[in-house]
């Protein structure tokens, strides 16, 4: 009797499971689409969404893109990067340059006047144009990832070696950006933005558009990820992860595959950073600290690597809990995060997504 019930239940859930997941996914999407519209409602309306909430969710959407990008290299190609914060911050800084120029008008950005510089450094040339800033958002993280990846994959650095090198890379970047002479505002970074493309950056309309752009970026990355994962390219990547040597014996050269996914991942991070900065209103070198990058790894681990939905879940959950803890129990956040790192790796090797999958079967 009991066993029969169980089999019936299993069969029912196997049928229902994917549909339930799909339904939940669509609901979440609908809510996310509705949020910016509700933000446009007048402030005293019952359904009004505060700018704090919108910014928080928008921030998490950007983090979700980072998690997805990290999952592409870690979950599929087996390369754990502990330096994705660097690409994220570089994209953010490129966008920040444009925003600073917008605030400064024809003059120099404020922090340069404090350093009594008389003219812009050469790498600031053209940053008053939005399109050029967008090019930088893509090109700078992409180029850095290409150069680093080219050398790293050429000498077949992998595993923990690769992780450590990426961590050292973001650490070096942080030190570099902390210097005032580097020309990116040193310690304080960029802040006090006013306008983007001529629109007031704090206006509800602008916020709503930025939010929608982040959502669009996430959906686009997700679609790209799905296409890649289903393609032959994705299968080769998985083979790189599981047995690189055997793949090479079969006549494949894994370097190109790894380099492509690595650069793509970095570019996605850069784009996420570029959307993050105007919403949050600040970018400084601490975004490059190794701690931030390694935290991104726990989003992916918690959500479930090697799946595309998992990292999004992880990013949402961890950051949601972070906003809760830092307000309610700031002392205990690090204990919680630490325990999360340990418990997820010990007991949830496939993350929450793995749990859900098991439930469905």
């Amino acid at each position, binding site marked *: 009797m009991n066993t029969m019930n169980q089999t019936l239940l299993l069969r029912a859930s196997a049928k229902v499971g994917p549909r339930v997941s799909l339904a939940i996914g669509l609901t979440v999407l609908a809510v996310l689409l509705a949020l910016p519209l509700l933000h446009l409602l007048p402030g005293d309306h019952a359904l009004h969404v505060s700018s704090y909430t919108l910014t928080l969710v928008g921030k998490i959407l950007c983090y979700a893109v980072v998690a997805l990008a990290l999952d592409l290299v870690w979950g599929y190609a087996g390369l754990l990067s502990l330096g994705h914060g660097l690409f994220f911050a570089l994209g953010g800084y490129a966008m920040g340059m444009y925003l600073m120029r917008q605030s400064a008008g024809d003059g120099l950005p404020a922090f340069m006047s404090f350093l009594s510089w008389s003219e812009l450094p050469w790498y600031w040339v053209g940053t008053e144009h939005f399109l050029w800033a967008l090019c930088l958002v893509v090109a700078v993280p992409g180029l850095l990832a290409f150069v680093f990846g080219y*050398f790293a994959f050429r000498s077949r650095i992998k595993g923990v070696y690769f*992780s450590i090198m990426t*961590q050292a890379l973001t650490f070096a970047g942080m*030190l570099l950006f902390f210097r005032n002479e580097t020309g990116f505002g040193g310690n304080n970074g960029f802040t006090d933005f006013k306008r983007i493309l001529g629109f007031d950056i704090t206006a509800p309309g602008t916020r709503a558009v930025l939010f929608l752009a982040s959502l669009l970026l996430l959906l686009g990355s997700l679609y790209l990820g799905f296409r890649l994962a289903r393609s032959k390219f994705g299968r080769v990547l998985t083979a790189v992860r599981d047995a690189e040597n055997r793949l090479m014996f079969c006549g494949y050269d894994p370097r190109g595959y790894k380099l492509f996914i690595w650069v793509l991942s970095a570019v996605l991070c850069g784009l996420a950073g570029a959307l993050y900065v105007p919403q949050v209103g600040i970018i400084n070198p601490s975004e490059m600290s190794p701690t931030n990058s390694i935290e991104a790894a726990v989003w992916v681990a918690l959500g479930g690597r090697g799946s595309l939905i998992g990292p999004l879940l992880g990013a949402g959950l961890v950051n949601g809990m972070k906003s809760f803890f830092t307000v309610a129990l700031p002392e205990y956040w690090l204990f919680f995060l630490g325990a999360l*790192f340990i418990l997820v*790796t010990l007991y949830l090797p496939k993350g929450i997504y793995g749990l859900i999958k098991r439930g469905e079967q």
Partner: protein
Amino acid sequence: MPTALYRLLLSLALLLPLGAQAGDALEFTRAGASEQVRLLEHWSASPTAERRAFLDALQQGRIGADGDKNPYVQQAGQWQPLTEANSDDNPRVLRLNNRLRGLLNTALASHALSDENAGARLDAARTLQRNAPPALLPVLEQRFAQEGDDAVHDALALALANLQLASPEAATRLKAVRLLGETGEPQAKTRLQSLLDGDEADPAVRKAAETSLAQVERKLFIGELLGQAFSGLSLGSILLLAALGLAITFGLLGVINMAHGEMLMLGAYSTYLVQIGFQRLAPEYLALYPLAALPVAFLVTAAIGMALERTVIRHLYGRPLETLLATWGISLILIQLVRVIFGAQNVEVANPAWLSGGWQVLPNLVLPWNRIVIIGFALFVVALTWLLLNRTRLGLNVRAVTQNRNMAACCGVPTGKVDMLAFGLGSGIAGLGGVALSQIGNVGPDLGQGYIIDSFLVVVLGGVGQLAGSISAAFGLGVLNKILEPQIGAVLGKILILALIILFIQKRPQGLFALRGRVID
């Protein structure tokens, strides 16, 4: 009443040198203000060994005079007459005005030039560099000719040259300039530079000054170079202490322990606790607390390391990336734990006297004792580790498991136990490193974070399973860091080093000293 007798004898002994100078004292106390100036100037120019005790007492405010201007000296709170002629008045301390004080200092310095202690002579020469009157020239020349100690000799040369440079005669100035060239003092450089920039008319003196300047600069450059090499070695020894344990555990288990930096931190906090314990329980032995902290720190961190290995890391073997994340989680918890217990501020760990100060090697090169001791300590730890790995049963097992885990297990090596002990050893070494770090830097919850990336780079560069690799990588990175630092700045230096490491492992992906293996996945 032996005590009273002793006291009497003691004061008599102390009085003897003063008694011999009763004439000087009487002369001084009887003199008017302008006469006292003349006296001090005269004494500066003709120092005698006997007068020194009187001048010392005068500077310490222990010389007094009664109503008849008879001199007295204060011994242990009591006024003792220095001459036969006593009146019944209570003596009053002799007050000196600022001018007299300055002259007294000069006079004391000129007397101290013949002190037995080289340090005192050096101090005296330094004082005279600043404010020697021309009348002192013969004294300085005589002392300069007799001086045996190099540092004092240099200092005297500078004092002498300072006087001679003011001379109207070109020949004397020439002599002074040549003299400056022979010293290695940083001030000699500024002195020569200002001479060249100033209005020195004599072409011969100018030319000599240029040669001397080049000479001095060369000497200073050597000092700087040695200083950089030393700070490089010092940084290297610290990196070595931080990375040694990491290299062992990485070689053995193939996992990176991100909580390794926190073992350094816990070692430093153990030192702090031991220091407090000594302050409370045995203040008389406080100077020895760093030595007592060594076993404590080792045991504490080794125990924590073994506990971590048994509870967390053991379950993650074969999944190095996950281990990295899990140990990162452990490090977060440890940092926050320390922050909650000890507070987020740095705690104060003081150097005992034998670790403070430094050894003056050259005029512009002082080597701090704590850094010298730490270099020695790092080498000592390496030697111990080498002995442990190469001369004991445990070391044999560790090496076997490092080379081939399965084969070692087949031969009956208890790999689980070896893993645990090796992890404890690695953590314990980090704890010892923490004791060393507590003596040269701040002790705070974030102490370990600053070292973790550098020590990883040491492991990456040095390769695993070989002590020689770690040693050469640590010292190489340390020295390279310190050589690059003054040229292009600390930050760009670090970035350059990272780039160099990336290029280096293009050539040798397994590090400097690789174990040859035949295993492929």
